[in-house]
């Protein structure tokens, strides 16, 4: 299924699974994200300080992992998943270290009516895994998707 294809709520298959390609999270990603967000917490920016921490080195911002997985899934899922619009429930299970390669598995787990008649809400369950297969982040997103015009 092409990411550009226009899809209506009715066309979205419940249970469909997607696997996004991997991406290695680099020091540059973390530095850029600190600059963009303004979050300079030592966890992400001070290599010397982090030597004495349980992680041993700087780790990625949780929100960087969340944002990267959205970008990765955008490469394999149709365009309706890009705006989240409705909601997000997310757990940060473990650190993403510099040099870790993350990938994303997603599944369509729900379809329900929205308060506006011409829209429906689609739920997507997502897991972010590192190169050892450990789940580092997981959660569910909800998306407003247009219904097929009558």
């Amino acid at each position: 299924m092409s990411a550009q294809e226009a899809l209506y709520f009715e066309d979205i298959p419940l249970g469909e699974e997607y696997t996004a390609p991997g991406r290695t999270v680099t020091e540059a990603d973390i530095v850029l994200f600190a600059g963009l967000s303004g979050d300079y917490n030592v966890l992400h920016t001070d290599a010397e300080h982090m030597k004495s921490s349980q992680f041993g080195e700087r780790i990625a911002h949780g929100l960087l992992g969340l944002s990267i997985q959205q970008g990765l899934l955008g490469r394999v899922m149709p365009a309706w998943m890009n705006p989240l619009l409705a909601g997000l429930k997310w757990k940060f299970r473990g650190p993403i270290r510099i040099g870790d390669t993350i990938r994303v598995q997603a599944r369509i787990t729900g379809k329900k009516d929205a308060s506006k008649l011409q829209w429906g809400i689609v739920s997507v369950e997502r897991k972010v895994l590192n190169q050892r297969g450990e789940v580092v982040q997981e959660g569910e997103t909800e998306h407003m998707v247009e219904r097929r015009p009558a």
Partner: protein
Amino acid sequence: MAPVLPGQRQWYFEDVEMGVPLETPGITVTEAHITLFAGVTGQGRDRDPDAVPDLLPLCLSSGLGWRVPQPPLVVLAFMGLEWQYLKPLRVGDTIRSRSRIVAKRPMKEGGVVIEERSIVNQDGESVQSGRLTLLVARRPVP
């Protein structure tokens, strides 16, 4: 781990006061933010060039939290998030973050703090809001 940083006052779990409202300064969301965000996250640009990606305001609010007079919380880990999208944002909108701590629970290492956060636009309308669960360090014993 109980990080001690030289030359900076910090807020530990013991210092967290429940229910005290905190409001950050604002930041105007620009074309440059969207371009940088698209680059670092790999998210394709929206067909509407002035649309702000849904996750960007939350990311910007994490930086706004450092620009308040209160010393920063010693956050050991970001544990979870429940978030709702109420209104889309456009390039040129100015956002600020309003928050307060609604729950705290001591743990073996540090303590869990739940923060209620709302991102408001220049008209004072809430555009995104939700709850963040954070693991915060305890004050180190001297």
